[in-house]
Every structure is written in C-alpha cells, then in structure tokens.
C-alpha cells in the first residue's frame, strides 16, 4: 500500500491538531512510523536530500502541535540517526579508498576530535582556530546501502520505543524498597508499570493525589489496586500534609526539557515543592523520547490550557460571562526540584541531561521550526 506521503503527513497533522491521538507514547510511535515510511517511500539520492525532506515534513508535524515536544523529539532523533548512519558508512568508504578526510595538511587535529558531531550550534568558533572546518555539512556523497541501513536503524529505534515501558520499569527494584510509602499524582503509564513491576516482589504503599479536575489519580489508583498494591487516594489539597510520611515521590511527565525541567500535569509542581520542603527525593520516570533539547524560555507558554468545562459548568449562564476560568492541563516544573530521572537508559541526575542530549540529537536540529 503506497499512499501519498503528503496524505499521510496531513493525516497525522490533522489527528494531532484534533487531538485524536493523545498520549506522548502513541504520538511518538506514530511519528516514528510515519517518518520511517517517508524514508522508504520517497525518492532521494543523498543523505543531505533526505535530511532536508525529513526536516520539511517534520516541521509540518511540529507546527501541528507546537507545545507537544514529543513530535519534534522524534523528528530530531530520526535526523540524528540518518546523520549517524551516513557518517559511519561514509567513513567506511573513506578508509577503503585510503584517502584521508578533507584537505589533509589542514586538519590533523580533526582526527583527534570525537567523530560524532558535537552538540554545538552551527558556526562554532572552535573550528576556526581548532579546525575541522566544514566537515559535518557535507551529506552529499552517495553511500552504498544507505537507505536500508537507515531504515534498519529506525526500525531498531521503534523497537526501543516499544520496549520503553519495560526498560524503565525493570529498574524499579533499585528504587523501591519494601515498606516504603510512595507518592505520585495523576496518571502516567510509565509510573504505573514502574510501580507494578516493583510490586511483583516488594510490598509498599502508594498515595495518589487525585489531580482535579481531570481526576487522573483515580485512574492510577484503580490500576494499582487491581495489581494488588496498597493504594490511597488523597485530594490535592492534602498533598503537603501527607508528604511527611512519604519516602519517595515518583512522577510521570509529558516532557523533559533540556535543563531538566518538566512539562507535567498541573499539580506536579505543588507536589515537588512539598517534597522539597520535607526533603523527600523526587524521581521522574519517563521514556528517553520525552527528553527535548529545547530550553524553557517562556515557562508560561509551555502549559496547555484546556476547556474550563471541567472546572466550572457551562450551564452557569450569567456567571461564566462575568468570571474568567482558566484550566491549565499541564505546566512547567523547575529542575531544581527533581533528584533523579529514570529513563529507558537508566537513572540520571538532571545535570547529566545535556550529555544525553548530545548523544541523541544534533544541535542543528534544536530549532526545527526556525530553519
């Protein structure tokens, strides 16, 4: 079935806009699959052309839901994979030819430089004095088997995504100990699987803040109780009071920003503030695909406000014309409140995130919409 790429992209764009697909995991998977299809269906001759194409389609996807960082992350990741595969294969070709890169006498230290492109923005000053001049810009050489290798790499990435939950939750034993009291809020599939995994061997208690007005906490409580975990639901207002008896706070998030800040369900900030006051460690569980290289330059713009309907009933006629109702679904959480991130690659402190970023994305893709 070869459908028009344009059709597929528009279809996903429309679904994102209409919020017909929700949940960062689903969105990530859909995006990755779509990009894989674009790579396999479209014609391209060089890696450079492919990169341009992916960027172009990626921009359309990102523009559909600019606040949702996951789509952009997947696009960046795929771009990174393309570059990586290209660089590896090209180097292999180079060695076969016995030629050394670029203009040989000028760049002896280019060989000293780490081969993968650094997380540095386009015109770094270093190359000028330290020099490996225009190396990364060249993606025009034809490389044998590039397409199949790229597709295979992306396939592996998709598998990585699919195994994300189990990879995160398998670390649960290291973090949850017997008879501990864990607090969480809202609903996160990652946290749910994390807690359930731990519950296989350990006995512990979970306190869930219900998170009005979405009441996602109820969903969590239901799922955990079904798995036989001792679960308590509390109203959001008593988070602070209950925090004193808690050993750990384990949270999910929609996105992790480059500085370690979160975009998470509203109510998360309250919980981590309470945890900080009581010096309770805060752990955030999330798949690596949620890590975004974007910094929170406008914290307000990161929160998504949804219909006030769940806060104030629309039937309250004259009242709603007099009063302003704001219902933020998610909001920014400062990195200073978070002690540990658990991703599918393991546990990392917030200060380590920049390195994960370097390994997963290319700096030139950070601002997709601008380029």
């Amino acid at each position, binding site marked *: 079935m070869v459908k028009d790429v344009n059709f597929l992209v528009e279809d996903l764009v429309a679904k994102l806009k209409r919020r017909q697909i929700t949940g960062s995991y689903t969105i990530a998977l859909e995006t990755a699959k779509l990009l894989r299809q674009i790579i396999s269906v479209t014609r391209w001759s060089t890696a450079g052309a492919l990169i341009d194409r992916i960027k172009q389609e990626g921009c359309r996807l990102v523009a559909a839901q600019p606040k949702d960082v996951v789509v952009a992350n997947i696009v960046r990741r795929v771009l990174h994979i393309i570059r990586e595969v290209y660089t590896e294969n090209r180097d292999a070709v180079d060695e076969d030819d016995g030629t050394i890169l670029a203009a040989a006498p000028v760049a002896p230290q280019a060989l000293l430089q780490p081969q993968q492109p650094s997380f540095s*923005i386009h*015109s770094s*000053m*270093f190359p000028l*004095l*330290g020099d490996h001049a225009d190396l990364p810009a060249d993606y025009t050489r034809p490389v044998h088997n590039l397409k199949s290798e790229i597709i295979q790499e992306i396939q592996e990435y998709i598998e990585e995504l699919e195994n994300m939950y189990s990879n995160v939750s398998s670390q649960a034993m290291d973090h949850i100990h017997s008879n501990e009291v864990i607090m969480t809020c809202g609903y996160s599939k990652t946290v749910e699987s994390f807690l359930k995994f731990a519950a296989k061997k350990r006995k512990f208690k979970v306190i869930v803040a219900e998170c009005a007005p979405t009441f996602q906490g109820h969903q969590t409580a239901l799922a955990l109780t079904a798995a036989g975990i001792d679960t308590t639901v509390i109203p959001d207002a008593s988070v602070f009071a209950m925090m004193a008896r808690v050993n750990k706070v384990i949270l999910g998030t929609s996105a992790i920003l480059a500085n370690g800040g979160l975009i998470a369900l509203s109510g998360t900030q309250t919980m981590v503030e309470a945890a900080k006051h009581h010096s309770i460690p805060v752990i955030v569980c999330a798949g690596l695909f949620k890590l975004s290289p974007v910094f929170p330059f406008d914290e307000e713009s990161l929160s998504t406000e949804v219909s006030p309907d769940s806060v104030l009933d629309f039937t309250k006629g004259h009242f709603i014309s007099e009063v302003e109702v704001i219902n933020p679904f998610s909001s920014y959480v400062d990195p200073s409140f978070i002690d540990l991130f658990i991703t599918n690659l393991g546990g990392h402190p917030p200060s380590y*995130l920049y390195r994960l970023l370097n390994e997963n994305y290319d*700096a030139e893709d950070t601002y997709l919409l601008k380029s």
Partner: protein
Amino acid sequence: MAHEEFSIYQSYQEFLQSDPDMSMPVAAVQSLVEFIRQSQASTMSEFVVMVRDAAQVLKSSARNSVSLAAGCDLFMQAVTRMADANVEECRQNLINRGTKFVEKAASCRESIAELGEPFIRDDSTILVHSYSRVVMTLLLRAAAHNRRFRVYVTEARPINSGYRTAAQLRQAGIPCTVVLDCAVGYIMEEVDFVLVGAEGVVENGGLINQIGSYQISIVAKAARKPFYAVAESYKFVRLFPLNQFDLPTHTAQILSFDSPQSVASPSPSLSDTNSMELDGAALDLAKTNPEVDYTPPSFITLLFTDLGVLTPSGVSDELIKLYY
C-alpha cells in the same frame, strides 16, 4: 630581532581602541597574529617559544587578564597543535586562521543573540549588570523584533559602565533605569530575570565577570529569579577557581587590610566630601578593590553561548572538546 621592537601589548591596546566592538580575547588573538606576521623564527620550537612568550607578556601586562587569557590560550592551543609542521607553513596557517577568527568573532554575538532572543519575553523586566557588548546585541535584537521589555541596569561602580548601557538602550527606545549596585536586592522582586555578560566562563560552568555579578546572582537565587549569563565561546577559559581569591586577577593589594598607622589622612566622611575628594577616594577604592568576581555554577541558571544554550554543567564538556 624585529619582533622586539614590536610591542604586543601596545598592538593589543590599539586594536581594542580602533574597534569599540572588539572584545579582549579577539584583540588578543589579533595582536598575536600581528606578532606572528612580524616574527622571524627559523625553527618550529623557537617559533613556539616566541609565541608563548608574547602571549605571556600580553597576559601579564593587562590588569584584568581573564578574557584576554582566554584568547591567548585558544591561540596557543592552535599553535601547539601544529607543532609538527614546518615554520613557514605553520605561520601562514595561523595567520589565516587567526584573521578568519577575528572576522567571525562579530557574527558570534549575532548567533548568541538569535539563540537568546526567545528568552526575552514580551512584557518582561530585565536586570542587566554593567555593560556587555553581547548582552547589548541580544537586547537590541529583541527590541528590533518588537519585543517589549524594560531594563534595570546596575550602575557598576567604580567604572560606572551601567550609564553607557542605559544610554544605548534609551537610544533604541527601550525603557531603562539605572539602579545603584546596592539597590539590587530592592528591585529584584520587580525583575523577571537577570542577564549578565562574562569576562570568562570557567571549567565548572562558573562565571568570571565584572565585580558585582556574584552578589546579584545570590540575590536572584534567593528571589528564585533566573540568572542568565551570555558569553561567546572564545571566553571559555581553562580555570577552575574554587573561590574568589583563586582568580588570576587577585593580587595582594586587593582588599588588604590597612595597618592602623598608615591611616594618616582620615577617609572622607559624608559631611566634608566634595566631588573632587570623592573622585580621588573612588580612585583609591578602585585600586584596592577587585575588578571581577567569580560566580559559582550553582547560581547560574543557563548560559547563552554561540555553541547553544548550555547548563553550567554542559560547559565542561565543551571545554574538554576544545582543549583535548
């Protein structure tokens, strides 16, 4: 030898004065290029020693050598990397590179401004310390893109460079108020974030900057306001200061305690000061006071550099890439 007539420090000063937009590391590189151009070393090792000496002269002749040193170090790094080539080739190469570097240095600020611009939200209030070219570039760019913001500038005694910042911002139509250095705590609650330039960025992600930056960062942290530093990547220096006295600019004279006997003339009191005396006193103070201070990384929210926006912890990685 010809190069002995060539005064590297003088050349450096000339470059700085000829172009007000030129920053110290760039001027350092340029004067070193000029030095190489005039040097006549025959062997490579001689060449390297000569350049190193010149750099040393340059570093030691300036009082505040931090960012100057960054330029020198960067240049020396390039020199040592070419140690195995022959002299003439190396010289030519370095001259080319150095010239290119100087050319590109200006665009560096532009790219920082581009990266930092989104952080300047519409309708925000910014506290700026002293005068920094790169901070100015960033602010003017944001204003040109119809971003509306207000700026508090610290006076930055004793050099009073805050007035220069204020004048330039006002010229661009940006509302601006100069505040006393000691009023930072007072206005902090009004401020959305703090923006400072840098003389140098050290290996742990800390900052060396115009005196006063450190205390502003402490106030900002206490008030939970973001503290952003803006720096070109050529200001990254290989230093790891552990405290203020660890800085290369620190000398024994700075803030040393007077012996009680030496206080022959009483320091001017508020009642009998006139402006002349105050100037003299201020000059005295400037002599015995530090010009720069060190801001530890824990007080810095983010650094805007031409390498991208970095967390302080990201700086060391970039430095490693640069020097190893």
